[in-house]
């Protein structure tokens, strides 16, 4: 039986790359292909079997699909394998964003960039979750590239919000006030500090009762500490909640409770939370950087600058202009339809089928 086995640097079930790989496995198996998951680091997930990459023995008619997002020993292992390689490029964060905060993590990213350049020319196919990433692949020397959107179940994310968490989140919310939200690891390139600064300006100028929730695990302890200290210094401890990682149900509740999602990242290779927010009917205000404009299309208020006053004013418009708000929500729902799991799965399946057909 023909096989397309998948390899990841690290498998974590709630991580966008991990979830993408699990959906990809379903698609591949649905095509009648053998498909197992292998990784360097493994965080167990119920119902998903992931093996250490060193257990892979080869044999048969197999393609190896590597999900590239950082530097990893797995890439070095794959470079030495004789099987044809497929790269699924999820983007490597440019090291300059991380360097000041976490030199060791930056070194990993530098290696990731090198590994992209080493693997791309040898890959039979380079898949990318966005056009932004596809250009990266092309620049790295990949001869055959295609965009296949990220495989994410946006409906499931909204289906079952945790009721208890939702009640807690709505408690104390003032009528006419708006709750801000951003979802993503606390990391320098995601610029939660800019969100906090804009939020501080918004509270001062527009709505002293607004609240902000930053959902996500700290990726850099130094950055998370500086962010917490900034919140304290600005006197926002009671208004800003750094939640840390949350369950799927709690995440659904956060989207349900939010009045606006504000994304001010300096770099994103795709940014799934933008779509999750749109699926939940939350209007999005975002800074136009990386693949963000491509992900949101016309369905977000996209800003060319992210100084606190501009962002605060943009959120004020969204909060206060009911027609604008309704238009953004409607446009968001339309946008989400373009990235639905069924459609994305079809695109992924088509790319793989083309590859196997030669």
């Amino acid at each position, binding site marked *: 039986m023909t096989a397309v086995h998948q390899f990841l640097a690290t498998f974590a079930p709630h991580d966008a790359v991990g979830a993408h790989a699990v959906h990809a496995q379903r698609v591949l198996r649905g095509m009648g292909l053998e498909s197992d998951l292998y990784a360097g680091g493994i965080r167990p997930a119920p119902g998903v079997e992931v093996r250490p990459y060193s257990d892979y023995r080869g044999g048969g008619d197999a393609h190896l699909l590597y999900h590239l997002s950082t*530097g990893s*020993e797995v890439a*070095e292992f794959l470079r030495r394998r004789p099987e044809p390689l497929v790269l699924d490029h999820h983007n490597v964060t440019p*090291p*300059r964003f991380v*360097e*000041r*905060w976490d*030199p*060791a993590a*930056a*070194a990993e*990213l*530098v*290696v990731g*960039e*090198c*590994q992209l*350049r*080493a693997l791309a020319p040898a890959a039979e196919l380079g898949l990318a979750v966005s056009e932004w990433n596809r250009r990266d692949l092309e620049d790295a020397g990949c001869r055959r590239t295609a965009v296949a959107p990220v495989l994410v179940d946006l409906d499931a994310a909204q289906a079952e919000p945790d009721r208890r968490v939702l009640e807690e989140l709505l408690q104390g919310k003032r009528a006419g006030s708006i709750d801000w939200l951003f979802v993503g690891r606390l990391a320098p390139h995601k610029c939660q*500090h800019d969100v*906090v*600064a804009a939020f*501080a*300006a918004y509270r*001062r*100028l527009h709505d*002293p009762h607004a609240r902000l929730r930053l959902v996500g695990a700290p990726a850099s302890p*130094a950055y998370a*500490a*500086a*962010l917490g*200290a*900034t919140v304290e*210094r*600005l006197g926002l401890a009671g208004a800003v909640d750094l939640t840390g990682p949350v369950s799927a149900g709690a995440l659904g509740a956060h989207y349900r409770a939010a009045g606006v999602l504000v994304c001010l990242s300096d770099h994103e290779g795709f940014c799934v939370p933008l779509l999750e927010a749109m699926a939940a009917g939350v209007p999005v205000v975002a800074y136009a950087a990386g693949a963000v404009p491509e992900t949101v*299309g*016309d*369905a977000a*208020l*996209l*800003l*060319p600058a992210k*100084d*606190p*006053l*501009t962002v605060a*004013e*943009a959120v004020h*418009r969204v909060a206060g202009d009911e*027609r*604008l708000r309704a*238009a*953004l929500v*409607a*446009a968001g729902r*339309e*946008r989400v339809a373009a990235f639905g799991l069924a459609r994305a799965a079809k695109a992924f399946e088509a790319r793989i089928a083309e590859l196997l057909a030669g």
Partner: protein
Amino acid sequence: MSGVIDHRRLLDEIDAEVRRRRADPSVAALERDLDASFARFAPAPAAGTGFEAMLTRAQDASFVDASPAVVSSRTAVRRLKGLVHRAVGWEVRHVAVQVSAFAATLTEAVRLLGRRVDALEAARADPVDPFEPPAWEWAPVLAGVVAGPPGPVGLAGCGALAEALGAIGIDAVEVSGDPAGPFGALVLSGPAVRRPPAALAALARRAAAAVAPGGTVVVVDADPAAWAAARSPVEVDLGARPLHAATWRVLLADAGLEPAGDAPAGGAGAYAVVARRP
């Protein structure tokens, strides 16, 4: 549906409103405060800005602003803030001036101390870095791997190595700044490889271009485990720490060099990675 949103017009209106607000001095002060807030807690950079930049930052932060904005959306709160400010403002200003002066003096003292350290380092004939590989130990090891095409052996980082290699009959030259060949071989060590990771990737590429075809690039450095064990946590956080040998192999391969094995370890916790230009 998205067609009903006139993005251009919306952004223009937002821009106009922001300009209008900026005319208010208290809003401009708020922006400055927000800019400074996060910078205050950002770590001392591992790279990009040096000692002088850090001191400038400290000096900027040493000024205590004793005139907070008394704005509030509620009239009563604004009046109360104004009242408190008028009542105790002179006392706060009196303390703030002293604190600012003390902090500024302290910053200047650190700057002077830095200059003395620079002078002392410059005056030392043989500065010793505990993680710089001992030249006498590494010279014969390197002599075995740098033989190749004609041309001098460039040594970036560790001056003592040039002397030690010269003593055993190898034409070795010290390289300061970016290596510009052509060299028969190039050895990178000490300060040359203590740079941020992105700079090291660029260094590997420049090194690859600086050696003649068939020539070798050798990286001699401390193993990160040895570095972390012997250095204080502050030094480890502030410094551009060494890379693992495996990472160097990846960077050198990315620069177009072929692996040529590792030289036998010369000292505890140190390694030498060797790569050859095809």
